[in-house]
């Protein structure tokens, strides 16, 4: 799981162009939106694409995404259970 969390942090930093942020800066239990990383609605859409592209997980409902993207830890748990690649 730790490996998946680290991989996820690296992917988030790269995909969302988070300048000056390292994996160590991201607390896997901290909220991804609303504070901390300062992500916006376009970032949320990029995360949906990331889930599909890397892990074969399709998120079609916005409310579903809201739950899954609460933190890196919750994302990683969801990926572990639902990944198809």
């Amino acid at each position, binding site marked *: 799981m730790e490996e998946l969390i680290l991989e996820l942090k690296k992917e988030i930093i790269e995909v*969302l162009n*988070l300048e000056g942020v390292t994996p160590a800066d991201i607390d896997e239990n901290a909220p991804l939106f609303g504070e901390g990383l300062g992500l916006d609605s*376009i970032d949320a859409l*990029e995360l949906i*694409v990331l889930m599909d592209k890397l892990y074969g997980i399709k998120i079609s409902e916005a409310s579903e995404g809201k739950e899954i993207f609460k933190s890196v830890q919750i994302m990683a748990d969801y990926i572990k259970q639902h990944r198809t690649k």
Partner: protein
Amino acid sequence: MINLEDIYRHFKIEYLKFFKMDSLAKAAFLGAELVCKDINIDRTISKKDIAIVCFNRSSSLDNDMIYQNTIQDSENYFPSPSLFVYTLGNILTGEIAIRNKIEGETSFYVTENFSPELMHETIEAIFENKSINGLLCGWTEYFNDFCDILIMYIEKSNDNKNVVTKDNISNCYNNILWKN
């Protein structure tokens, strides 16, 4: 080849949204930053009365091609939302407006070549609007690592006229600091 991120860091600009922009918006943004950093554009004019107008040749084609790569292969079809939002050239005027809290009208024109005549005519037309007293105006071309940026800040004269001539615009463009 100009590295836009290096310019950002060189001038110690603090605006993390910069890193999410496409190259065209980054280049135009940097041009506006360099113009605005030493002057208070709202020292006498409200930001509600300042407009933005930019011109270029390639619109957003540089980013369009990168976006196209995300949808080219039906087996690997992952359209990127963050690239998609920059598939319109006029987005850069919005980025400059948001950064500088400018609330006047914004417009963007795609034209074959840099044209002082067209730019001058457009400035005259914009300044006919009595509520517009200042204008960030520029040529903002970026395509395939070629970057050509001119941003000017123009204010109406006390008698409500545009004081900028076609020759002024030509001279500014021909004396541009960075061209590659």
